[in-house]
């Protein structure tokens, strides 16, 4: 999945007596790749967590937000400069998130967990099929934010593409911004109050329904942003969403459902494990790694590495 330019492999042409350094460099290349993908998985997982915290729902369509962000940005980029295209993509996907919540979720009265699962799966299918009919099966990508697929700079002997710095940098920014939002702003506190105790929040005058819509919008926005920043490195296609949803869900569970701080660490773990799995398994089985980890966690410790037994008990809608 990594395009060859992302991590320039000029290290291949080293001579024999530098083989040990070559191995070390490969190690760091894989590490960097793992961190990069881990950041995206963490962003998807945080999106899961935000909606889960607000509603108790697992939104299976989370991966589609990422796909939509990338695809929309590619289309917009044909008419406007890159920063505007990204902003537009984020805004449009946020609107899609709001529409989904308002049209399909808001008016449901105490639905069962099974019903919600199937509804969000069906929604993800519909979004995917719509994307297929809009954009076809072709694979798209955005240009690199700075430089091109060929540029890279050296960092301790490892060739790192500036796009990777963008990914990590924006990932850090998203996590910090969300932290500030939820802890320092009144609106963020309202959302946390709704998660903690929905009825009590309503008794404080907070419109719980709007908080749910807001949670969908925020999740859609960060998903779309994630899609845009990873797009130059990987291709985006109408069906890129589902594998991301699975991996994002794995990360969310790994860190403890609802725990966004842990999701960052868990994302790194999955990204790095997946990246190094190449040493033992052929690349075609990469997704199997993520799913195996998911199944392992679900069977052994559903509360995740950092979660408590309480978190494992699913919340009510």
């Amino acid at each position, binding site marked *: 999945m990594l395009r060859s330019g992302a991590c320039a492999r000029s290290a291949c042409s080293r001579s024999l007596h530098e083989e040990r350094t070559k191995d070390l460099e490969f190690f760091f290349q894989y590490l960097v790749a793992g961190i990069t993908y881990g950041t995206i998985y963490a962003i998807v997982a945080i999106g899961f967590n935000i909606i889960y915290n607000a509603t108790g729902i697992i939104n299976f369509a989370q991966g589609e937000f990422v796909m939509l962000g990338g695809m929309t940005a590619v289309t917009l980029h044909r008419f406007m400069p890159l920063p505007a295209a990204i902003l537009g993509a984020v805004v449009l996907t946020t609107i899609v998130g709001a529409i989904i919540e308002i049209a399909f979720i808001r008016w449901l009265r105490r639905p069962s967990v099974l019903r919600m699962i199937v509804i969000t*799966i*069906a929604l993800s299918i519909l979004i995917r099929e719509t994307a297929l009919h809009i954009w076809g099966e072709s694979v798209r990508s955005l240009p690199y934010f700075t430089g091109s697929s060929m540029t890279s700079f050296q960092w301790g002997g490892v060739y790192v593409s500036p796009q990777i710095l963008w990914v990590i940098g924006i990932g850090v920014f998203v996590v910090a911004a969300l932290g500030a939002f939820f802890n320092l702003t009144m609106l963020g506190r309202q959302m946390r109050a709704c998660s903690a105790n929905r009825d009590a929040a309503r008794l404080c005058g907070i419109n719980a329904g709007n908080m749910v819509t807001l949670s969908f919008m925020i999740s859609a926005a960060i998903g779309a942003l994630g899609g845009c920043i990873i797009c130059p490195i990987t291709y985006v296609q109408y069906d890129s969403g589902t594998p991301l949803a699975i991996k994002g869900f794995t990360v969310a569970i790994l860190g403890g459902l609802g725990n966004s701080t842990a999701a960052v660490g868990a994302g790194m773990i999955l990204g790095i494990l997946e990246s190094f799995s190449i040493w033992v398994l052929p690349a075609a089985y990469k997704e199997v790694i993520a799913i195996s980890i998911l199944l392992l966690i679900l069977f052994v410790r559903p509360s995740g590495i950092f979660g408590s037994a309480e978190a494992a008990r699913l919340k009510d809608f």
Partner: protein
Amino acid sequence: MVRRYSAVFAFALFLVAIQLATLFAGAGYYLTQLTMTAYYSLLTIGLCMLIGYAGQISLGHAGFFAIGGYVSAFLTTCDLTPHKGSALVSLLSKSGVLVFRPGLYGGTLLTVHPWPACVVAILLTVVIAYLVGGPVLKLRGHYLAMATLGFGIIILRIVLGTESLGAADGISDVPGFPLFPGLAISGDSSLRVSNYYMAWGLVILGMVFLLNLVHSRVGRALAAVHGAEDAASAVGIPTARYKLHTFVLSAVFASLAGVLLTHYNGGIGPSEASVMKSVRYVAIVAAGGMANLWGALMMSLVLNYLSLRGYFGTFDDAVFGIILLLIMLFAPDGLLRRHILADLGRMFSRNAAGEEGS
């Protein structure tokens, strides 16, 4: 009891009527898709048992279909001629397990006979279903759904990524499944009518079996498990065991469908293991009314047939997604329930004030 079997009898008559209709219309080729529909329906009614009666969702049942299909396809196409000399191979071929048959490009292949291949496929399915089902069925809600989805994707990735399983192209040149002299499950157009009746005959057998199961002590126990699992277990029903057995049973139905359809089609591809197929099966069960075997069968007949005829065009997957969405939004107990109109009315007359506690 007479009532139950009268429905089966009526359905059998209906099937005969269809076949005769195609005969008179000179449109015997419709029978091909109808036969394929029958095998998909076999999977569907098994899944209905699991979702509707045992209350366990499975988003990975296409995986079991694929296990059945791919194992039998692989065994009946993998040429063992290079190993002709080994003792094991010559023993198996003398006992009839291995047979010689003409290959696609001329020459002869030494492959496993479809019957033992089928047995191996089903056994493997049973083993996997027990191994996977044990831990998976301990999960609830989201986790159960995700785990079954994950299982399905693992199967998909394995068949997609493995060269000897044909990778993206799948396995073709799968021979027919011989039953009696002159009767075989195969796509041969001369055997079209007999295949039609064999396929649907199997479905009817399956229906009778499941209907008996539902009305037996086991079936009532399952209903109790579905309705209120903790209460059921407090009464002494071994809920975990029953759920597991139902899971394995539905897996066997799916796997058998996979085996036979592969022999009928003469091949199988990775799309049979896709997530979309699993979702499709769940959609059909939901549309039929979750705990409604006849509903699932009818819906499978209609929807699978239309899909196979290509009526949905490029919107094939989208259609099933929409069906699933609409049903889950408006009629989560399935379409073929009587109270649906009353439920709709109640839903829209609720105002935005407080909620009714429950």
